[in-house]
């Protein structure tokens, strides 16, 4: 019977009843159910800029490749027009008169038929204005020829480029976490 009380509270068991009475103070007090959280609205999905970035990279690379090809093409054309005028040729048909082969005296038989021989003659092509691509040495010497205002502008541009490159370096270091490492090194020092 004791086990029945433990199982389904039939009968009686003083020991278990005492335990129950002692522990009754910890029993669950019926409270109100918790306030339900507001229904979560489905947020619109974040737009993926992957394709946009890919397209941008493709466009930039296309522009770069195109400009390189264009530059090379123009350089080749300019060099071709520089000294190859002598090599250019034109095929012309030049009329020549061929003497008669037979040894018989020439009898005037009216106007002779004209024969044509295909010859190759050089054609002079008017030289195109030559575009010389400035070399490094020329770039270095270029500022000497600039006016005062141009020199000032050049200096300002160089300064802006230097600042920009520094900023870019800082950003790159931040991304790579170098700055933190450097700061830690400085602190150690």
């Amino acid at each position, binding site marked *: 019977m004791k086990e029945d009380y433990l*199982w*389904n509270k039939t009968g009686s068991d003083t*020991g278990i009843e005492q*335990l129950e009475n002692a522990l009754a*103070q*910890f*029993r*669950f007090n019926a409270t109100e159910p*918790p306030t*339900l959280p507001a229904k979560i609205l489905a947020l619109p999905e974040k737009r993926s800029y992957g394709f946009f970035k890919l397209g941008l990279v493709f466009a930039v690379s296309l522009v770069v490749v195109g400009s390189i090809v264009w530059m090379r093409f123009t350089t080749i054309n300019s060099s071709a027009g520089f000294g190859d005028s002598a090599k250019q040729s034109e095929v012309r048909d030049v009329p020549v008169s061929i003497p008669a082969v037979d040894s018989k005296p020439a009898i005037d038989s009216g106007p002779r038929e004209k024969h044509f021989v295909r010859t190759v003659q050089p054609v002079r092509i008017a030289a195109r204005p030559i575009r010389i691509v400035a070399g490094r040495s020329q770039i270095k010497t270029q500022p000497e020829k600039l006016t005062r205002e141009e020199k000032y502008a050049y200096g300002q541009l160089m300064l802006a480029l230097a600042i920009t490159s520094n900023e870019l370096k800082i950003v790159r270091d931040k991304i790579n976490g170098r700055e933190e490492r450097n700061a830690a090194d400085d602190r150690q020092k």
Partner: protein
Amino acid sequence: MTSDLFLFAGRGGEKSAASRLVTPAARLVERIRAGEEEAFGELYKVFAPMVHGIVLARLPRDEVDDIVQDVFIAAYKNLSSLRDDNAVGGWLAMIARNRATEFFRQARQTEELIEATDTRGDSRSRAREILSAIRSCPEAYRDTLVLRLVEGMTGPEIAERTGLTPESVRVNLHRGMRLLRQKLGIEV
């Protein structure tokens, strides 16, 4: 021959009907899924003592009520992860155990302090002594004893709410009771 066939058909039909048996708790879950907030209140009334008991078997008393509320809110939020609506009791018990473990991990140092500072009256100290003896029992016995002695549930009720089989609840109750008596120095 034909009668045998009908007999088998009848048995098969009974079996499939039994497998499709929907408990009242499962119906509550269905209603909650349909957006009835009242059903959630009913579910809370049915299962809150069980969750309270499981949490009380592990955590300081001051924290129990908050954790019980947290368990039900977490259950409501994650109701979509419940595969079998009939097993909602076991599922809630599992959430309660997980929350208690999580809390214990985060606030291990404060637990003993709360228990140690509360020293008022003999009956209270006796109750704390019994509760701490129950808490020192293995997990299977601990839950069953708290639900039986603190929450006042019967064995079948414990089985129904926790999703355990009645046999295992019976075994846990008897073995746990024996262990508790040993710990408290009560002679059977």
